[in-house]
């Protein structure tokens, strides 16, 4: 790599990011995201998306160790940035010459073109876009020229600014009751944060990051090392206590809307914990997981509803065990036929099961019993000593209790013999069997436990919404749950929570994501598998394993080279 003279790499990167910029524009992401201001009047989420392509192009246009001079690096960044702007500009020109393009590409609208050209018309706008992308390319390329201790604070400051700007609407919602109006008007614009706030956040975050690197980290490390084991333990307990207290009072802070979001996230956490046992612990890829959710919901619905479909008409608490039991049984029954299948076949068959259940639920065959497409209405609410659960806040605690139970069970199972058996199964079925693990009961236990949590989630879901319809139980739920446990980290309990917060909570709060949710999930699944297969918050075992595999592969390859020589 000693000859850096050519610009091939910068050109290639620039073209790739250019196509990405064109794509995100043409599929409507830029326009849809443009409604969300990050910094009022300065930057919207749509622009951030568009501009980040040029930044990335610049950053990857050259690499350290290629012997590129600083000037050469900046030049490469400029080339990559300018090239990134070319495909969007072509789109602008085509859309101007031929406005009918909208009939084919539904999202290439006038307002998209306005965003791309900064409302300045075709020629001026295109030139501005070109200039902006070029400058961003330079910035991206120059970033890598900076020493590490400058890079990190800059990056964190920037990310903090963007993150807070993105969530400004939510923050405003939380802060409004407690904060004087004048201060809020100063900090927040109509949408997003004001430029001054942005600068303040940037300085604070960057400053903290710089201080932490220079001093804070060492001090904290020293304190940690000097701490006696008993104090450390106490401190850990205190932390956990604080965390639990925080979770408990959360609905009081958040208000009704955010609590409802929390309820949805909680339902997904509950399902995620269940699927985590099946996929994360036992390594059985189940794509029909929504079936158990549906079964739990429908059993709850049928047993407690006041409408004509109801059977029994019993209370929520009496119906809950039946819901969970029905889902568990379904897990076992569906588990038996697939016992002898491996990995990918299992995935497709469980997907088939999920579809069978969905088709059956909407069919005329079962309509007299479970309501067909009209679903079930008037589902019972839980009641404790005369107190009826109605508000999202009430359900928050119910779901929280469910999640805690699921966490406890997962955690205890994981470290018990059963958990060891699951993991042995995940690693290698044949070896596990040879070691004397009974595949049948081990697999069925995984299916049953996973299904039970899903059934519980379904039962609470049905009661919370008080009406259920078959279309709520589609494959996308399974994919949703699968994505969140994979992105969070397979086999990791905190990973499920992190995954659910990021993949379910964020899109629920930022509504403009709705349309592109699955597109982003798909992309995230691929990116996670390529770059960080252990997930955002991996389980320690899993991380070790993955690294071990890397090491082994490396040593294998080294051996191969040796033997060839």
């Amino acid at each position, binding site marked *: 790599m000693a000859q850096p003279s050519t610009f091939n790499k910068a050109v290639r990167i620039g073209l790739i990011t250019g196509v990405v910029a064109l794509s995100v524009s043409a599929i409507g992401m830029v326009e849809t995201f443009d409604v969300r201001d990050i910094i009022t009047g300065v930057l919207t989420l749509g622009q951030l998306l568009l501009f980040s392509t040029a930044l990335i192009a610049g950053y990857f246009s050259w690499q350290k160790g290629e012997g590129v001079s600083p000037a050469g690096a900046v030049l490469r960044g400029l080339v990559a940035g300018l090239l990134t702007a070319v495909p969007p500009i072509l789109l602008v020109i085509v859309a101007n010459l031929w406005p009918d393009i909208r009939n084919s590409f*539904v*999202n290439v609208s006038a307002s998209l073109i306005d965003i791309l050209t900064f409302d300045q018309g075709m020629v001026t706008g295109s030139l501005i876009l070109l200039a902006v992308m070029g400058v961003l390319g330079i910035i991206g390329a120059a970033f890598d020229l900076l020493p590490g201790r400058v890079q990190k604070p800059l990056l964190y400051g920037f990310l903090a600014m963007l993150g807070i700007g993105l969530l400004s609407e939510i923050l405003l919602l939380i802060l409004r009751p407690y904060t004087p109006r004048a201060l809020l008007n100063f900090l927040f614009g109509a949408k997003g944060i004001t430029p001054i706030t942005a600068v303040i956040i940037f300085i604070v975050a960057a400053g903290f990051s710089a201080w932490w690197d220079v001093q804070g980290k060492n001090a904290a490390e020293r304190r940690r090392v000097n701490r006696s084991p008993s104090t450390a333990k106490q401190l850990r307990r205190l932390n956990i206590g604080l965390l639990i207290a925080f979770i408990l009072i959360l609905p009081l802070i958040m208000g009704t809307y955010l609590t409802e979001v929390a309820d949805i996230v909680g339902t997904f956490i509950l399902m995620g914990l269940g699927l985590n046992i099946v996929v994360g612990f036992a390594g059985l*890829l189940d794509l029909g997981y929504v079936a158990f959710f549906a079964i739990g919901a429908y059993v709850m619905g049928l047993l407690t509803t006041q409408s004509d479909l109801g059977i029994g008409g019993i209370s929520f608490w009496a119906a809950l065990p039946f819901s969970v039991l029905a889902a568990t049984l379904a897990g076992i029954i569906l588990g038996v036929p697939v016992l002898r*299948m491996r990995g990918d*076949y299992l995935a497709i*068959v469980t997907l088939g099961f999920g*579809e069978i259940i969905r088709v059956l639920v909407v*069919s005329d065959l079962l309509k007299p019993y479970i309501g067909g497409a009209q679903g079930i209405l008037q589902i019972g609410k839980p009641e404790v000593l005369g107190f009826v659960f109605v508000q999202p806040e009430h359900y928050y605690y119910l779901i929280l209790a469910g999640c805690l139970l699921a966490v406890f069970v997962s955690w205890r199972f994981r470290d018990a013999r059963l958990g060891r058996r699951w993991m042995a199964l995940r690693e290698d079925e044949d070896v596990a069997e040879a070691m004397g693990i009974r595949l049948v009961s081990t697999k069925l236990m995984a299916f049953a436990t996973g299904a039970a949590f899903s059934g519980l989630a379904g039962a609470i879901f049905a009661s919370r919404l008080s009406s259920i319809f078959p279309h709520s139980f589609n494959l996308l739920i399974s994919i949703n749950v699968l994505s969140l446990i994979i992105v969070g980290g397979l086999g990791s309990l905190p990973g499920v929570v992190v995954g659910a917060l990021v993949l379910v909570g964020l899109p629920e709060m930022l509504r403009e994501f709705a349309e*592109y949710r699955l597109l982003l999930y*798909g992309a995230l699944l691929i990116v996670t598998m390529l770059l960080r297969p252990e997930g955002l918050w991996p389980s320690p075992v899993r991380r070790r394993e993955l690294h071990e595999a890397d090491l082994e592969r490396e040593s294998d390859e080294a051996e191969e080279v040796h033997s060839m020589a």
Partner: protein
Amino acid sequence: MSQRFKEIDFIGVFLWVFRAVIIVLVVYGTVAKLFLGVGNTYTAETWLDFFVSGLSQGSLYALIALGYTMVYGILFMINFAHGEFFMSGAITSTVLVATFLSASGFLDAQPIVSLLMITAVAIITSISVALLTERIAYRPLRRAPRLVPLITAIGASFFWQYFFRGLFGSALIPFPVPEVLQGRWTIFGLEFLRTRLVVMVTTVFALVFLYLFIQRTKTGKAIRAVAEDKDVAALMGINVDRTISITFAIGAAMAGIAGVLWGLVFRQVHFYMGFVPGIKAFTAAVFGGIGSIPGAALGGLLLGVIEAVGPPLFLEGLGIAGAHQLKDVIAFTMLVLVLIFRPQGLIGEKLAEKKA
């Protein structure tokens, strides 16, 4: 030891009962329908219609199944995104070519040229999507554990679905059918829907072409060699990565053709249209014996026919209301049954147990 035997027994018995119940239901339903007169009565012509529509539907499944079977044969992975290759070709060629040809009247004036143009665009799109997917989502993970590429495949599938939704919208897009192909043709005194005949004839041509390509050309030989053993093939001077890409491209080309034919038969395309046909085509591939090209063709045709004839035959015979709604259930149940009782498929070797 005795504990173990008991368990196997229990599972064995369960599966045996499961099989018996399905067979009894199917036989009883058929008998009830044909001899006891349960449900509607159909004339012989209607039955023939069911059969022919099943055959043409099955031809489409067969064309899509080829992609699954070839990729599985070579990489031992289920290319979950294959249904999206099919969708991408169909939707892109409809929006960007067919709609304009139809509006300008060229479609009716020159139906053959038009359809060839539409198909060409569909094939190019499908191949591009397939190659991109392979390059980004599959190739870097070739040595990863088996579940990893499957997960990226699922990701790719949803990515492409919503990518094309963003590009062309979520509405149903009408596929213009040339006038020549509307209505029926009479052959040997029997009437056939023209589009269905076109589908079957095209499929036969595509299958023969593919078979010759795999068996007679050098590239075909390379594909077979890589499927046999990647490492040895590489030692023989075969560019494995390129061969795998070619395999994806061929499968995608077949899916692209299937996409246009699908548009002709159903007269509309949609961003979600690839999903269910994809799973069913996979069922067909497994049914015929995954990894085997004639198997995919056979499996597709059989699946199509069973799906078309099954609901009016044994489901109605069982007295089930709205039997045609349960078409998909038949396909998925078949998938489960095949995987349980004959994972190697009808004419496949025992690939299911051969571990990659």
